[in-house]
């Protein structure tokens, strides 16, 4: 037992969580049973590489993991393959070791070999002298009077143990450790608090290889242990089959880790925002480049942010890959010392996190954190004071940072029906006209937005093209104009919406948008009061009888009227936006909205899926959004 003042610490407190509240206890004396340079809590995708990197740098490292293996989503979660992300980094060498055992000791997989990865990650970390505590949870964090982390309290099979560290890396899925010490955190969609749907993964042996099959299974607030427990049980039960045979593949296991894609985000020293990125406000000091589409999942686009909808709905570029330069500062929790956040909960808005969350990129985030911890310790400086050039030099050695990964925007889907190519935003008027005249107008539409934002004249030409005989040119010009905020587009948008234009744009390999739905979104974005009556018509029960709305049936007889749902939900949201800005119209809009979701009857027009099903829950959520909005009015 050591008196803290003997150690030069004036005051120490232990932060912990009790009954969902963050609280703390003042500590007079402390007896750290172990001392480490770096403790990584959560040895998942990022945490595993944070620990390996720090240990490889000859630091004394302890890895703490609630499960009994490393790798998290990329092993226990069954997400075995890489979905984009950029190449280079420590993981490339580890992957080669994994490949060595794939097909020799462990069964090959159609993607990476999860069992080999569990073994190799563990051996890699141990080979650098690190310690691992499995089946261990962190229940408290010790902070000094400067909000600097001094150690943690863990609970494991020996009971509670207090351990000191110079740097703590929060590699948990939900920024649990950052939350515990009082870092400001964010969770869920602004409109309704929900998160990206989780996936449920089951593995089987098919054609001599392990194949993981997954599907979006619902949304869950994993911060609520009751809700999480129900989600896990429901998700596992979804894999029950009528008959089990070896034909067509033999089931192996349901992954023990739910495929949760979104957790708490911390407030960091810097925050990565999609809006800033689209406006060209990017860091000049990247530590790596993240690379993926803005992979938002879920189909209730109407309730996403306008930044996201401008890109995915109005411009139909949802499946375009973007390159995001990631700054180190998003890993530094604001107002705290001695702690880094590595993983999906780094300081980002959720729009950006749809892109900056892929396994390769999170492994890189871990590598950055491990190196940053090293520099802080050897240079005896705070984590926020480390030298960028020094950090980048370390990252360049493994190509975690590689300037060649700054690839810009790409149509880049494997097995795509769209040509794989780098996107150059258009500046030539003829190129823009050609693009807008086609069935793939997305690049031209977004280029108009960029030109307009940079005060380059484009709206005059777009207004001229509104009168064109070419249907595509006229309608896509209206969309581009609206995206520039020009209201002369509205008569044309009303026409597109009222004729329920069901033309599907063709820019992307997935998530292509319906032109009529785009028009409804933009009508809401521009707060078109003249379209209130038209929008109200869209949400009346008889609208579903329009011949363009067709039910899509599943093999087991359930159906979902997807196009109707898009018109319905976007019309609801457009009315909400107008109602927010025009108080005199609220009574009328409120009455129509109430009627539209009365007694949840609208659900039966959209789907016959069961209440427990994900589709049903998303459709039902529309009613909740309406009720919550009306309450605020």
């Amino acid at each position, binding site marked *: 037992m050591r008196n803290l003042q003997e150690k030069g610490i004036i005051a120490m407190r232990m932060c*912990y*969580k*009790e*009954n*969902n*509240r963050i609280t703390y206890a003042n500590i007079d004396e402390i007896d750290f049973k172990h001392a480490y340079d770096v403790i990584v809590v959560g040895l998942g995708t990022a945490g595993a590489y944070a620990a390996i990197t720090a240990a490889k740098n000859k630091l004394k490292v302890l890895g703490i993991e*609630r*499960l*009994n*293996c490393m790798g998290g989503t990329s092993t*226990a979660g069954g997400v075995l393959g890489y979905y984009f992300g950029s190449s280079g980094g420590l993981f490339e060498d580890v992957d080669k070791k994994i490949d060595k055992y794939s097909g*020799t*000791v*462990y*069964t090959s997989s159609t993607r990476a070999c999860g*069992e080999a990865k*569990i*073994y190799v990650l*563990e*051996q890699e970390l*141990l080979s650098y002298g690190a310690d691992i505590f*499995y*089946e261990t*949870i962190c*229940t408290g964090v010790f902070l000094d009077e400067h909000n600097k982390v001094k150690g943690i309290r863990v*609970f494991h*099979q*020996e009971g509670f143990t207090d351990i000191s560290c110079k740097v703590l890396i929060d590699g948990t899925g*939900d920024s*649990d450790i950052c939350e515990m010490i009082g870092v400001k955190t964010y969770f869920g969609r602004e409109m309704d608090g929900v998160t990206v749907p989780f996936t449920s993964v089951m593995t089987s*042996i098919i054609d*001599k290889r*392990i194949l993981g099959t997954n599907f979006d299974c619902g949304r869950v607030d994993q*911060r*609520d*242990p*009751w809700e*999480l*427990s*129900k989600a*896990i*049980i*429901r998700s*596992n*039960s*979804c*894999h*029950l*089959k*009528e*008959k*089990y*045979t*070896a034909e067509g593949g*033999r*089931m*192996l*296991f*349901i992954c*023990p880790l739910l495929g949760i894609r979104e957790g708490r985000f911390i407030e960091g020293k810097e925050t990565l925002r999609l809006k800033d990125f689209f406006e060209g406000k990017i860091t000049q000091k990247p530590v790596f480049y993240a690379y993926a589409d803005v992979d938002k999942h879920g189909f209730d686009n109407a309730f996403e942010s306008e930044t996201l909808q401008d890109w995915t709905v109005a411009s139909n570029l949802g499946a375009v890959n973007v390159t995001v330069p990631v700054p180190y500062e998003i890993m530094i929790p604001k107002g705290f010392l001695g702690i880094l956040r590595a993983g999906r909960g780094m300081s980002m808005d959720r729009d950006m996190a749809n892109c900056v969350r892929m396994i390769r990129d999170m492994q890189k985030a871990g590598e950055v954190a491990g190196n940053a911890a090293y520099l802080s310790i050897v240079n005896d400086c705070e984590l926020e004071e480390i030298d960028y050039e020094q950090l980048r030099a370390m990252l360049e050695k493994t190509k975690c940072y590689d300037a060649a990964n700054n690839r810009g925007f790409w149509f880049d889907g494997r097995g795509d029906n769209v040509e794989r190519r780098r996107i150059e935003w258009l500046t030539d008027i003829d190129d823009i006209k050609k693009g807008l005249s086609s069935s793939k107008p997305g690049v031209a539409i977004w280029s108009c937005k960029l030109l307009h934002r940079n005060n380059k004249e484009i709206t005059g030409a777009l207004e001229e093209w509104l009168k064109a005989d070419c249907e595509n040119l006229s309608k896509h010009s209206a969309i581009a104009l609206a995206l520039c905020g020009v209201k002369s587009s509205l008569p044309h948008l009303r026409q597109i919406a009222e004729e329920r234009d069901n033309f599907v744009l063709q820019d992307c390999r997935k998530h292509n948008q319906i032109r009529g739905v785009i028009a409804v979104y933009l009508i809401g974005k521009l707060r078109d009061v003249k379209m209130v009556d038209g929008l109200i018509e869209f949400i009346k029960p008889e609208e579903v009888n329009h011949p363009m709305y067709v039910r899509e049936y599943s093999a087991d007889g359930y159906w979902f009227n997807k196009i109707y749902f898009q018109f319905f939900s976007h019309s609801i949201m457009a009315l909400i936006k107008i109602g927010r800005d025009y108080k005199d119209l609220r009574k009328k809009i409120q009455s129509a909205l109430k009627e539209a979701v009365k007694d949840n009857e609208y659900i039966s027009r959209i789907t016959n899926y069961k209440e427990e099903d994900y589709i049903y829950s998303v459709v039902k959520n529309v009613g909740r959004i309406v009720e919550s909005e009306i309450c605020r009015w």
Partner: protein
Amino acid sequence: MQGVYDTVVLGATFSGLGAAYAGCGRTLVIERRSNMGYEFIACLNPGSGWNETRVSDIGGFFKKELYSRGILSPDGLVHLPALEPLLSRWVKDCSFSVLLLTEVIKIKKVENTYEIQIYNSSGFGTIKACNIVDTLGNPLLQSRVNVGILSKSINAMLYGDTTQEPVLNNQQAQILKGKLSGEYILKYPLEIEDNWITARKKLHEFWLNRPSELKPWTLAYVANSFDMCAEKGVYQVYDTWNILPCYSFNNPLEALEVGAKFARERNYCHADVL
């Protein structure tokens, strides 16, 4: 996270779930893992004597489902992985509550009740209960009873690109047969003291250096729970806190039945005490 229950079951094991099903009153199952029935499913223990186990309503329901879905064969071979979605479907429709990913930190006896300190994504919390059915026997929670573990192994599902059966002429490990064609489980014995790191290392080294006739076989899935064997019996910590070791049953049906029978005999229903 305050809650008051007639019975708290420690461990979402088959015996624990059987007890939760048969108990009357408010029942809560607390489980530190994210999966249920792991003492057979996740540890890849195919069990034995499936058809010798006498079943009541609960066991009967399961047995019927297992047969009709092709999970269990008349000769007692089982397709273990399919038990997990079946068990989840059943639990989903049961009236008791389940709290997964929840660690039990401490249990304090206060007169006729128990204060159970837990930890999960809500942080620390306390649950109160009249009765505890403990299927894990964690020595950290009580020191009155020591449930001895008799043996321990790490198991793995094999895959072979061959029509030959895998044969292991080695007393060190065993190969067990599953129900579906080509379904074989390697059972590799461990020392009781082995942890995940040493267990995985031993298994890896063993399979890396396996005999040439087993070369076509690879480890498709390594169990994420240890397969253990414990002494049968009901161990009493207090009159209302009993341990039914989950690793002491021959197969999941037997475990369900013993758990249910125990709860029925005890008639666990004492909410008025609280």
